[in-house]
């Protein structure tokens, strides 16, 4: 594969990645609505929590690596070049701040209402991971659209 073909492949993969990450982040956030709208439901709780946990870990890996599922070292290097790495770091910072704001909000909320440890972790991780992935996808989409 020539260098130009690799550039074109990285371009296509980059656009697809930003779209997939964007949809994943939205699905992740929307998927929490049933959990929080009916927190007392216990019937399918293990399944729901298990699905959330797997998705959260998957998304965490995606944010950390920029797409660990993709193959081809040279194309992957192009895909995760300087711009993407900068976007990745900025998005991780967004995730950190979202998690901190969620944690501090829960701390205040816990003064008035009991918040279980599971619910607190769920909210903090959802805020941190979801916002980081959404931020990365948005930054990448914007970078692809310019010009």
């Amino acid at each position, binding site marked *: 594969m020539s*260098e*130009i073909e690799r*550039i074109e492949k*990285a371009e296509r993969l*980059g656009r697809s990645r930003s779209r997939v990450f964007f949809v994943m982040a939205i699905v992740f956030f929307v998927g929490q609505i049933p959990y929080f709208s009916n927190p007392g439901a216990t019937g399918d709780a293990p399944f729901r929590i298990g699905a959330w946990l797997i998705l959260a870990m998957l998304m965490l890996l995606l944010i950390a690596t920029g797409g660990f599922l993709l193959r081809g070292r040279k194309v992957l290097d192009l*895909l995760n070049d*300087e711009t993407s790495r900068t976007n990745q770091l900025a998005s991780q910072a967004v995730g950190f701040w979202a998690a901190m704001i969620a944690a501090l909000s829960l701390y205040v909320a816990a003064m008035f209402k009991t918040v279980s440890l599971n619910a607190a972790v769920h909210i903090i991780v959802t805020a941190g991971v979801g916002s980081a992935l959404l931020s990365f996808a948005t930054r990448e989409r914007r*970078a*692809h659209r310019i*010009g």
Partner: protein
Amino acid sequence: MLINRLREARVAKGWTQAELAAQVGVSRKTINTVENRVFTPSTTLAIKLATALGLSVEQLFWIDR
């Protein structure tokens, strides 16, 4: 603010964004965002771009005061 004349220099060479990207080993998106002043490149990338285009870094990038 960091200003550049990357687009002019690239067009003068008759290269596409993808061709310049291939010369310096980055994605077309990175060339595009640098040209549009959305992204400030690292020193390493600035030197690579200047070398590929046969210019000095100062000829390619400067700070608008």
